[in-house]
């Protein structure tokens, strides 16, 4: 039961993330990227399983009697790392989209892309502000 719910959630997150990524609004794209990242994290979490624990798996409890069933700690450590990285990346992407807005005056990707085409060849001249 849990497995089905988790699988459906991961699928729904991926679907929603992909949908948002294909929007024209830059901020929605960032949300989409964040969602896909979270979907991957959730999937990673489901990769571990609950194992009937032995004293080998939970050495801390050695000499303390029965060991309860334990979730795999490795995937949780991995996900923790991935969440921290994902947090940093999302923050950076948001700041970057603000800068894109400052430079272009719009968050519409179609307009931003159109600017690239129109600037096209001429930009090479002032390309890179190293002479500032």
């Amino acid at each position, binding site marked *: 039961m849990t497995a089905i719910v988790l699988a459906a959630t991961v699928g729904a997150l991926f679907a929603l993330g992909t949908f948002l990524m294909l929007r024209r609004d830059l901020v929605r794209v960032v949300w989409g990227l964040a969602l896909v990242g979270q979907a*991957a994290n959730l999937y990673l979490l489901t990769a571990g399983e609950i194992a009937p624990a032995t004293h080998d798996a939970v050495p801390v409890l050695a000499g303390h009697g029965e060991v309860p069933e334990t979730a795999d700690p490795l995937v949780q450590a991995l996900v923790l790392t991935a969440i921290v990285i994902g947090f940093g990346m999302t923050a950076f992407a948001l700041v970057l989209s603000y800068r894109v807005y400052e430079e272009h005056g719009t968050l519409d990707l179609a307009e931003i892309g159109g600017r690239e085409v129109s600037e096209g060849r001429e930009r090479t001249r002032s390309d890179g502000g190293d002479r500032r």
Partner: protein
Amino acid sequence: MTTVVIAPMLVVLVTAVLTLLFGSYPRLRTGLALAGTAGYALAVALLAWTVVLAPGAPGIATYQVGGHPAPFGITLVADGLSAFMLAMVATVGLASAIFSTRYVHNIGYDRRTFYNPLFHVLLLGVTGAFLTGDLFNLFVWFEVMLMASYVFVAYYGGPQHTRAAFRYVALNLVASAVFLLAVGGLYATTGTLNMADLAQRLADPAAYGIDPVPVVGLFGLLLSVFALKAGLVPFQFWIPSAYRAAPPPITALLAGATKKVGIYAIIRLSFTVFAGADVPISLSVPGTDLGIAGASPLAFVGPVLFAMAAASIVVGGVGAIGRPSIEGVFAYSSIGQVGFIALPVALAAAATSEQFRRLAVLAALVYALNHALAKALLFLAAGAVRSATGTIAFDDLGGLAERAPALSIAVFVGSLALVGMPPLSGFFGKFLVFEAAIRAEAGGALVVLLAGSLLTIAYATRVWNRGFWGAPSTAVTDARMDRVQVAAVVALAAGVLAVGIGFDPVYEFAEVAAEAALDAEGYAEAVDPGGEAA
């Protein structure tokens, strides 16, 4: 003995911290950055010498982080392949750092401070990726490297830079999610993420109670992530804008180091980890005879990578011909040249004999070295031209040969190395790649390689004709070349020449590297996953 494995990482990490601490003292910061990069090159040389090159060297050394034995802790592994890649990155990094000392002056004050720390963080990420023996740790090093490169692509903060950076960030965030998926899937399937342990378990799945079939698809996911990092078609479209947006010394590093991480990861995982996997594959297109069959995931890597490499060579070459600026030509050329590196890797994956496989991997490594040196040289030269004249558009250039002879000779050497003229490094790279294609009796590969070589000649000639020959334009006449910048470029040109003339030791080093890449047993033995512990 084992500390030498992490020495390069420690040096760049300490340098990154120091340059950040002394950010407001420009001279001190620049000096530290330069000393740090020189120290990095020394540490890499020491590593390569003690582990691989010295007589009686062990050939492989491991460092178990925190003293936890594999597969429980993270293992860092230095073998011939890692050492070869590191040596390549150290050379490019040193030239780029020397160039940077004169380039950073031209950048606005608020950005200057962060240039050096980020430069070393980028090197740190690349070094970690080459040394790690753990799949999840590889993901982490990728992110370290990417974070620094994101900032560099967005560095100047103009419209075209932020656009390029956003494209680069968005693509790589998706790639990171895909990487995580593959990591999670592999862990669920095999119960380990240690590369040596993974190789051992996949070689004998029944003994570990593993159903290895999902591994093929998961490896496909990994391959697409690494192809994105390497910039192979169809994942190439971020390259031109990102390479034009980043500062030239960083572009040299992106082409010479970051890209090679993708290639390295493909080689390492294909041959060291998945080559021995016991997974019968039989795929066919319904209704036709077309299909893939084999005994390991390599059976599908061969054809898929071959198609990607061939497409890269064509797309990169054709794209490079019509570009209006020097950097534009070289950015597209990078796509094509990575195709030249990936093609022998594909032939190696499809190969049946061990001896041929070694030759093909060797060809890929030698070509990678040639590309790293020559392309770094050309990007730095483009940066020097831009510093001196304020432009890199062909329309405003011309006659650089007259105004800047030393730089022009260096560019000439670099272009010829790309084309593959003897006695430069490019000749041996191309020679070996062609030999691999002939030995594999791959007619299609030969046609693509020949076409790619012709395209290379065409765009290299165009750069020379439009930029360097003819009467000097106004921008060129007023130009003042920076001596240090030119010196860095000339030093790389000397390197290209030296590799070509004294090719024997390079060949031997590359041969050791290729052997290390294919030696899954030796790798597993050195890492010793679960020897006693499991």
